[in-house]
Structure formats: C-alpha cells, structure tokens
C-alpha cells in the first residue's frame, strides 16, 4: 500500500529550472534562509550546512526525478507540479514524517505547529509571476542561480575553462622557465 510503482518517466517534458549553488561563493550569511522564511510564513525550508565547521554549503531540495519523498508519501500529499517542483499539499499531509526519513539529502522538515511537512516548493507563486525564487533573489553573493541545467552547465564549463586557462598559463610560464 505504501509504495506506488515507479511509473513516471522523468526525462520528458519541458526543460525545468532549478536552484544551483556555486559553493565557493557562499559566505554563509543565511540571507537565503531568512528570505525563505519571509516568503513561507516564517518557516524556512532550506539549510546552510557548515562543512568542517568552516565552509558553508547552501542545501535546498533537489526536486529529484523519481523523488523518494513523492514515492513514499502514503497520503499522496507530495506531487510534482507542472514546473517540475516536488511540493507538499499541506492539507493532505497526515504527518507521518516518512518523507523526512527517506530523503537522501535530509531536506523535508515537519512543522509541529501547522502539522504538515515542509519542503521547498521552489517559490511557485514567485516563479509563476516570472520572478526568481526568494532565496536566489536574496543571495547577496549571487552564489545561487535559478536556471535550466544546460544554462547552468554552460556557465560552469566556462568557469572551469577559465581556471584551466589560468593554471595553463602558469604552467607554461613555469615550464618555459625550466626549459630555458
């Protein structure tokens, strides 16, 4: 009864936008969390994790394809919207917390006050209005981007290429010196 068959084909449909992080730009100022709170009735659904207690990494729902939370939710309260976001329907949630335990990233929370699970809905209203999600807009360091995979990868390729170029220049100079 609990597990419904894996029937959804995730790779079809329109290109979907996601929130991506450039970790070394993140200061850990938690502006994203505050922005999320303000957007979602003072309950944030994203986290800043401190790796080795120094490096901040912003953690937000990945809206996985074949999302475990969506598959495990016995009440059918978690579903995928047209924009590809995996969201909780508050009034259908029965509060079993299975989504919280099953998420490989440990993202969904449970609000004891409102009695339903809380997770990122990718600011559905804002996105529908043509804006970026609150966390992306609020990030003062522009460490977060809201983009389709292709666009984000293109930017990332460029970043890496630039680094290789820099390293390459260094190396060439170093090698040239040695040879001479």
């Amino acid at each position, binding site marked *: *009864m*609990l*597990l419904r068959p894996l029937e959804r084909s995730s790779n079809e449909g329109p290109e979907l936008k996601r929130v991506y*992080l*450039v*970790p*070394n730009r993140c200061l850990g100022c938690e502006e994203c969390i505050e922005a999320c709170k303000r957007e979602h009735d003072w309950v944030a659904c994203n*986290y800043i*994790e*401190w*790796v*080795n207690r120094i*490096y901040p*990494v912003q*953690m937000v729902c990945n809206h996985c394809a074949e999302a*475990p939370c969506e*598959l*495990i939710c*016995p*009440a*059918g*309260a978690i579903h995928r919207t047209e924009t590809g976001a995996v969201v909780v*329907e508050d*009034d*259908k*949630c*029965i*509060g*079993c*917390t*299975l989504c*919280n*335990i*099953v*998420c*490989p*990233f*440990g*993202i969904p929370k449970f609000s*004891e006050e409102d*009695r*339903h699970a809380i997770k990122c809905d990718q600011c559905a209203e804002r996105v529908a209005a043509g804006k970026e999600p609150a966390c992306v807009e609020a990030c003062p360091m522009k460490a977060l981007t809201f983009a389709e995979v292709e666009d984000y990868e293109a930017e990332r390729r460029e970043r890496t290429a630039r680094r290789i170029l820099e390293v390459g220049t260094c190396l060439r100079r170093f090698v040239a010196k040695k040879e001479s």
Partner: protein
Amino acid sequence: MIRIEIDGNAVEVAEGSTVLEAARKLGIDIPTLCHHAGLTPYGACRLCVVEVEQRGRKRIESSCTRPVEPDMVVRTDTDDLREYRRTTAELLVAQCPDSKPIRELAERLGVQNVRFEGRGMECILCGLCTRACQQKIGTPAISFIHRGVDRKVATPFEIQSDVCIGCGACARVCPTGCIAIEDMGNKRVLRVFNTELELQACSECGAYFAPQRMIDRLKTETEVTEGLLTRCPACRRQAIGAVLRQAMR
C-alpha cells in the same frame, strides 16, 4: 464538470468531488472535525451536514461524503442545520470537556452553556487516526474497539502494538491533540496506545532520530541507499554538503 447550486451561488466542480469541496471553492465555511483532505471521507462527526435538494426531495447529508450530482441544490445554513450543528457540538463538548479546540469550535457554533455532565474523554472518535494508520500507513496498528459510548481507539487488546511503526501520523491528524508522542532516550512512547518503540541511533552522530521499525520498513520499500537511512537527516545534509563542496568548486 458538474454544476451545482450552493446557498444560491452556482459553482462548477469536477465530477467526483464532494459538496464540501464545492462549498469551500465558493468560500463557504462548513465546520468539520473528521474531515481530512488526504484521507477518505468518513462522515462521522456530522458537523458538516447540509441540506441537499434533488428532484424536489430534501435530505440532510454530510457534505464531506456527498458526491456532487447534476442539478443539486444545497443549503448550508438553515435554522435546522444550525440547530443540528449546535447540539452536536454541545454533545462533543460534553464528551470532551477539557479539549480546547472542541470548546472553541462549539463557541463558534453558538453553544453558550453545556447542559450535560462531562464524560471526561479526550478523544472525539473522529477516526482520523485510525484511517491514517489503516488506509495510508497500511499498518493497522490502531482501530476502534467496543461500540456505542464505550467506543474508543486502541491497539488490538490494548497492549503493545507489534506493527506500529511509530510514524506519529495518528497524533498529527488528531484534531484535539489527545495522542501524545514522546521520545525518551532510545524509546518513542505512545502512551495512549501502550506502545513503546525502539529508536534508531544515527550511525554518525549517535542521536536517536527515527523508530527502528520505520527504518526497516523504508529499507524494504525504497531504493534509497541503505547507508543513508541509518544516518539522521542532519548528518545526511552534512555528508552531501561535503560532497558538494568537493565536487562543485
């Protein structure tokens, strides 16, 4: 789509929806206790009763269970209905005199004084917990026992349940909040159901984070890597964060 009339307003709703859903779409407030959008309708609290007129015949029905049909005329606020709701609410307060949500609801429905001696219960027998447990979680750990005034929610034989996974859905759907779940050390205690469950310790930080039975069940029902399930969500975030930091410079 089916077009029906509620309190003089026409509304179109999808086939298979209930009168309650149609009324809420119109912004008409119908009080409910045993209704939950995620669970099958039950029609037990009878607070959501409405008058349904069809082919000239009027009937009183619970709006949460009544599917819409074409040419239905619904009235949600007649004198009779108000009396039914008020009396039912008064009976509920008499049943659970100490329950704050029930008192508030009764006040809203116009109950001024309760003319009956309290029964001192905390549970209003709305069946949300049993439905969540049986239909959704799929482990019939709790159900109604006895009948009439003796009816109550309990595990079989009112002893430690051997199927409860300790998810706590029962407590969270309860409108009166009478099911308490406490985590004490390595035990999760559901005192009203005489049930104690062992909690799983996180393999990283050692914190107790979820009942072992729940984890065992998730292991059989999901494809999530097993190592992850034995970590608490906070440690999972840490682990993934470290990976991200490494991978995504």
